[in-house]
């Protein structure tokens, strides 16, 4: 294996790992969009908020990590419930753009709230995930791969698998899938729309928590965490707003593409290509396939 190729491979692997993160955030978007048609702009801030909460309860109340996790999950569920109570149910039947704007408002509230409750300084998040390079990879393939990233990828995969089971096998999961197509159908399963919203926002919150912990372990919990949400958006375009596989594949594509572009193109144009490359890629892709990777072709009717 040549050095160049090895470097390329390292870049790709590192991109894949970042892609997993994007995919996780995108997953949260997709869940909510699929179930309620709401474009939840606050998903990124939810990651930040969840991570802040997770660190915060450890710092302030001295809880151990294994207790902080359920506590943070509890907070996210409570948050979902509050959001449904205070925001969503008052905005039923409004235009999508109105709901979208409401989630931007929500993002502001969560951001301020997180800072207010847990302080706005950068926090270290260490839950004992392995750090450093994987010796195995280094020794056998001469590749530098972060252990944390591998762990993150594994956890993310488990989460995705769990979600798949949840959606395919449980009654609630099936109702959630039904609601995406037809609100009436969901009602016939015997679950009220409000409950469904709470559930789906809770699930999205938990996904955000996982993503937040992963990302936070890598680079600390700070405001910039919420910006990964902006990275997740092109993933959505690529994968389609309603497709879970799309979110995953899209995330990986963006992650890899971004890293490769940064490494190979960045030096020629002054760097920081990462900031926009994902968008340009998504945009170019959209022009070819407006419905995204896995979206269905829309037959317009009048």
């Amino acid at each position, binding site marked *: 294996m040549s050095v160049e190729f090895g470097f390329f491979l390292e870049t790709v692997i590192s991109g894949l790992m970042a892609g997993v993160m994007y995919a996780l955030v995108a997953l949260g978007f997709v869940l909510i969009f699929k179930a309620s048609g709401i474009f939840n702009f606050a998903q990124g801030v939810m990651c930040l908020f969840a991570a802040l909460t997770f660190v915060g309860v450890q710092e302030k109340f001295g809880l151990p990590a294994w207790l902080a996790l359920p506590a943070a999950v509890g907070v996210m569920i409570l948050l979902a419930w509050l959001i449904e109570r205070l925001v969503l149910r008052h905005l039923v039947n409004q235009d999508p753009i109105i709901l979208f704007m409401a989630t931007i408002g929500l993002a502001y509230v969560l951001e301020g709230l997180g800072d207010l409750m847990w302080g706005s300084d950068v926090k270290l998040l260490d839950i004992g995930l392995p750090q450093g390079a994987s010796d195995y990879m280094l020794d056998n393939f001469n590749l530098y791969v972060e252990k944390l990233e591998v762990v993150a990828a594994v956890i993310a995969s488990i989460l995705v698998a769990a979600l798949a089971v949840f959606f395919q096998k449980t009654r609630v999961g099936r109702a959630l899938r039904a609601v995406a197509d037809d609100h009436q159908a969901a009602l016939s399963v015997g679950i009220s729309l409000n409950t469904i919203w709470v559930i789906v926002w809770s699930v999205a919150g938990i996904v955000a928590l996982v993503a937040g912990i992963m990302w936070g372990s890598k680079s600390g919990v700070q405001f910039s965490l919420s910006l990964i949400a902006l990275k997740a958006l092109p993933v959505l375009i690529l994968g389609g707003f309603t497709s879970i596989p799309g979110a995953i594949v899209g995330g990986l594509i963006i992650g890899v593409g971004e890293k490769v572009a940064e490494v190979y193109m960045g030096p020629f144009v002054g760097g920081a290509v990462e900031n926009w490359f994902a968008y340009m890629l998504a945009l170019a892709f959209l022009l070819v396939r407006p419905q995204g990777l896995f979206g269905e*072709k829309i*037959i*317009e009717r*009048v």
Partner: protein
Amino acid sequence: MTFQANVSDAMSDVTSNAATGPAPAKEPEMMLAVEHVSLSFGGVKAITDISFDIHKGEIRAIIGPNGAGKTSMLNVINGFYHPQEGTIYWQGKVRRRMKPHEAAKSGIARTFQNVALFKGMSTLDNVMTGRGLRMKSNFFWQCIHKGPALREENEHRAKVEEIIDFLEIQHIRNKPVGKLPYGLQKRVELARALAMEPDLLLLDEPMAGMNLEEKEDMSRFIIETNQRYGTTIALIEHDMGVVMDLSDRVVVLDYGKKIGDGPPAEVQANQEVIDAYLGVSH
């Protein structure tokens, strides 16, 4: 008084069936013809090998059970769908594949099965939008809203007001259409289509969801449109009474295929048509 006798004839002409009008002495002029048109969506056939024509000046009804492909047919006619097979003749010439707004420009207007008004605008603005194709003033004049732009705006307003008057919707002129009752929305939609001064007007279930009185009004408007402006009309309608009263000729579709074509009375007697409506065939 001497003119009594003729009058009653004239009156019956207006109020009842236009089909009894004077028989055409010469070959009717063709407005539009579709020949062997087929349309499918990802393998699902919506229309299969359909041919029929629409004469200039007539009221042509397209009927058939739900899912027969009627609306798809209208969508083909005004360029919204592009058939995989077949030819469309427009005013005697083969029509190339065109975009909906080009079809509109060539003189085809339509209304929709589920009212498709511009909900955020007033009745007046909705109808004015229908004049868009005929308004020519350039961007500069639009910016200052004077000179040619203002003149044009006023001229078209006058035209639009005539249509508003014709369809008796003066009282809702400045109301946002979103809040109007359904029957009035349908009327505004017709007004918008008429504002285009089309050669061919496609009406997709103009009377769906209306009560008897509204239906009568709408029938009157359709007949008057046909007579006063000489507009050729193709309409889809479920109310057989209305179809029989209004139309000169009827084409019947079922499962995307044509199963009948001719004057209302003839079609009504067609066994295949009766079966289709009763669900016997297939």
